């Protein structure tokens, strides 16, 4: 095949393109909707949610998970570009962990020492580490599907960041059901659950996102 012929034929496959950014946003929103639906069908919010929203510990669970998802989303969008070796937005990924560390410190000061372990262990760690990854599956799949059109320099890292977003979304929904509100519980088990999704994203990314 002559190169000129190839070029002519590529020009025949060139309809107007939607910006990739819009597709990423659509994938995140659709993924969150599917996770929401799954959440409502399987668990639903805890019965005392109306009182719970007035407590700072309950609300903080949403702050930290949503901040994680949103910051990771911006980093992923940047990493989707082939010329980006190291995203300048990467420091954003520290925001959620720093918030969590501060919350843990505040909790340790606010609560007597004999309460630390019970709050850390909580009531439902196994459930938490099962349901968060489950809610994260649809967002992860959709984000990876859009990332396949992208050109990340590191497929593994791009997949991992997609996992952070999906894990953050899954955790935000699970948080509305979960009775364990202590930052100690969140730091241990939410982190573990989101870490599992991140690992899955990295694994899938290394296979699916090569180009």
């Amino acid at each position, binding site marked *: *095949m*002559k*190169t*000129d*012929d*190839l*070029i*002519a*034929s*590529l*020009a*025949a*496959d*060139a*309809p*107007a*393109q*939607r*910006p*990739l*950014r819009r597709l990423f946003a659509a994938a995140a929103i659709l993924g969150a909707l599917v996770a929401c639906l799954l959440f409502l069908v399987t668990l639903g919010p805890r019965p005392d949610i109306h009182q719970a929203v007035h407590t700072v510990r309950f609300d903080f669970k949403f702050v930290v998970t949503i901040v994680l998802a949103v910051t990771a989303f911006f980093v992923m969008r940047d990493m*989707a*570009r*082939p*010329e980006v070796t190291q995203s300048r937005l990467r420091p954003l990924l520290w925001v959620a962990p720093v918030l969590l560390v501060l919350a843990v410190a505040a909790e340790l000061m606010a609560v007597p020492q004999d309460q630390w372990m019970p709050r850390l262990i909580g009531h439902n760690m196994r459930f938490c580490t099962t349901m968060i990854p489950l809610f994260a599956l649809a967002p992860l799949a959709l984000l990876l599907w859009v990332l396949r*059109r*992208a*050109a990340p*320099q590191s497929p593994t890292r791009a997949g991992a960041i997609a996992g952070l977003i999906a894990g953050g979304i899954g955790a935000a929904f699970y948080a509305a059901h979960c009775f364990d509100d202590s930052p100690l519980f969140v730091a241990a088990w939410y982190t573990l659950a989101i870490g599992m999704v991140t690992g899955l994203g990295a694994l899938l990314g290394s296979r699916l996102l*090569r*180009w």
Partner: protein
Amino acid sequence: MPPANKPDGPEKAWADLMRAGLAGDAAAYRLLLEAIAPRLRKFAGNGLSRIGNADIEDVVQEILLAIHLKRQTWMQDQPFLPWLNAIARHKLIDVMRRKGRRGEVPIEGFIEILPDEAPAPETSHSELNKLVSRLDSRQRSVVSSISLDGHSIKDTATKLGMSEGAVRVAFHRGLKKLAELYRTGRSA
């Protein structure tokens, strides 16, 4: 052909063509690829200096295919040349790895390289032809008709008894599959 030798290089001209191409202007898009190809040829040649011309042309074609399939990843508010350079380097590194060559990918982007003025070599054998033969039959007949025989989408649809929409879809999927075959099927 856009003016490619202004002091700031072809950045603005190519970015404009790419913008038009992304908006659906096939003629502008074709001009852009035609302007890029000679530089790609030189770039690939510098990287793979010890293999023959036909192989270099294979690499040029593989890079063009990657540019095509990844063109959505260029952000229109960002400079175009760094994007183009990143795609070309990524594919050249990939080719060298596959061929087990220890050659160096040129440090300078191919943009700083002057275009190769020589016309495209007439390739008798082409990697792409071989890969086309490995597509499934529907994609193969569509891609052969459009890319090898130079038929339009419309003529291909008539010839194969398909709708134009179905031809477009099969063609696009075929191109994606070709890029994947390049990447995975050439380890030998």
